[in-house]
């Protein structure tokens, strides 16, 4: 009896280990997120922005996991934990909210084929449970931020970054760049420039005129 319990326990441990840690491609050097989190993000990005759609890049091609990795790195510790908890929850919630197929649908989300992942996420999006919709909205928000950071996507959506000249005002003589010492302020009174003249940007920005 005891032996049987040990065997069952060991099998369960092996299953959990494989489910949580097994079979992920290694993370790129310097990544803050671990391989399983990057794999989940790639899987979700491909499901939210799948290949073959009207936009030039899929979520994976747009480098969403790398963007989210940078975003997580730039976040405060508590927010990092919250985001990672969100990723883990979505990855393993297939145990409770499975994809198509009795057993296959319960595999972790990142291990499921694209069509199944899309179906799972659609289930979250349209759920009658507010908490499920909230989880989906949070995850999609993070992925969308990363998708929009891609230059090709920006170009297709007419959202290319545009340059604007910043006048040098009195405040620029007082404040250093964030994190730097005041001794690094490069401007003096002679560098002050006239304030913005209020020329509407939509009439003057390159590529912005209608």
């Amino acid at each position, binding site marked *: 009896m005891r032996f049987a319990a040990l065997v069952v326990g060991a099998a369960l441990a092996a299953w959990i280990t494989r489910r949580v840690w097994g079979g992920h491609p290694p993370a790129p050097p310097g990544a803050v997120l671990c391989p399983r989190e990057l794999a989940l993000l790639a899987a979700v990005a491909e499901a939210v922005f799948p290949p073959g759609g009207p936009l030039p890049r899929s979520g994976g091609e747009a480098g969403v996991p790398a963007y989210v990795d940078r975003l997580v790195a730039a976040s405060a510790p508590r927010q990092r934990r*919250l985001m990672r908890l969100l990723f883990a929850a979505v990855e393993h919630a297939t145990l409770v909210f499975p994809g198509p197929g009795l057993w296959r649908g319960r595999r972790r989300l990142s291990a499921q084929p694209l069509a199944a992942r899309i179906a799972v996420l659609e289930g979250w999006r349209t759920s009658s449970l507010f908490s499920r919709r909230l989880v989906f909205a949070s995850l999609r928000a993070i992925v969308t931020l990363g998708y929009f950071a891609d230059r090709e996507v920006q170009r297709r959506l007419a959202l290319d970054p545009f340059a604007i000249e910043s006048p040098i005002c009195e405040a620029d*003589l007082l404040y250093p760049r964030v994190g730097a010492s005041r001794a690094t302020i490069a401007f003096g009174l002679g560098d002050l420039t006239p304030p913005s003249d*209020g020329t509407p940007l939509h009439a003057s920005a390159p590529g912005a005129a209608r």
Partner: protein
Amino acid sequence: MSAPDVDLRAYADYERDFREEADVVVVGSGPGGAVAARELAARGLRVVLVEEGPPFTPPDYVQDGGFAMARTLREGGLRATRGTVMPTMQAIALGGGSLVNSAICNRAPAFVLDDWCGDYALEHTTRADLDPHYDAVGAYLGIAPTPDPVQGRRNLLFRDGCEKLGVSCEPIPRNVRGCRGSGECFTGCRPRAKQSMDITYVPDALRLGATVLTSARVEQVLASGRRAVGVAGRVVAPFTGRPGHRFEVRARCVVLAAGCMATPVLLERSGLAGPSGHNGRNLQFHPGVAVMGIFPEDVDPRFGATQGYQSHHFLAEGFKLETLWAPPAVLSVRMPGSGVELERRLLDLPRLAVWDAITSCNRSLGEVVPRRRGLDPVLRWKLHPLDLPILKEALYRLAEIFFAAGADSILPGVHGLPDEMTSLAQARALRSCDLRPGDLVLGGNHAFCTTRMHGDPARGVVDEWGRCHHLDNLYVADSGVFPRCPSVNPMWTVMALAHRTAHAIADQAGRSPGAHGFSPPGAAGAGRLGATPAGAGGR
């Protein structure tokens, strides 16, 4: 030529623990704190202004929505209420919320202020009482209606829709000079047109002799008996919040302007919540709902004032309508769908406008309590069922204006209703359907009332002048002092009240108005900082 010789300290300039002395220490450099600090310095008082965030300059701004939020907002922009879940924001930067808001300046309507006076035993807070303070701030910041040339198409379409329906509307008055309509208010104004506190009141306070400590987090208000004697805290690294050197500022008077979500936590942590039981209670928002509209032609939504038009037509019914813009990646979070359907909708972005409503949900209350550790708050708030119809009606009115303006379709963002509506008849469901709070995508715009003013010390935290009822020289100068939501964007009212509070403090210190000063009507008197302001009626 070198930079002006002023006493501003940045994170990298702190080398050891330190201690300062001042007449007045002001905590927080947002619209309340910056105005108070400048006005007090102008009246000749020795002021130390303490701000937890760093100063930002244009090279520090990033246009990417995610990183902009992570850098300039507390909790990386992920702050949300519990109960009825709703995201809400608080900035962490020199200049506070003024760095990342849309510069909207509205005076609180007279009927709102009359209600405040009637319901909260206030005697000197009518519109006539506050107008001199509104005027002083308005003239200083150049507050003026948004001119047509920088409105951009998505704002003008709102005007057109309102006019067709006979709904009154107006260009939004803003604290900007030379706005070019870059639509970047939320990520920092690169053309330096927005007259945020960091480029207006704070430099002026420095020039007038104030000391400004940035990246300095106040963790405790120090008190002795009925008097505050200063504040203590730690220097913190920008973005990570890693604590460093300790500091203490001893002062004859303390002004807390840390924001409605932080000031009550600071009071609680300092053991100064007071006996009324109202510190941190009565939390109100202007819960917001938004509708996206798709027009048949391009509207170039990226260009134009971030928020250029508004309608006060329905204020008495509990909501205000306005145009809206934000980084497209952030706005797209509201778009329905996923997969190829979402991609198709994103292609509509050049034809898209977003308009929103902020609502006066006076029955929906909450509270701010400290987390177990740290100074971040836990926000509990619940939408009252009787306030839900206000949100539904606001959604319907937005839909009505969109269709009047010629929109092909709208995306109402309401769970249980169609993702896209193509006619006003279809949009009537917004009004008639049975909704739960969780069916709406709510935004926690503005926050108020957590240290509310009340003439009765048992029913409020501060008096009409912003002074804590239970302490002689501790003042609050942020939106927490509002006794009830103001129904319109609060920044100008925060500044007007802070302006009044600062001059009341200076009057008590016996400082004459002087060249830079301001003499509020009937405010005469001199004496010890923190004594009863003239005309306040004592306690």
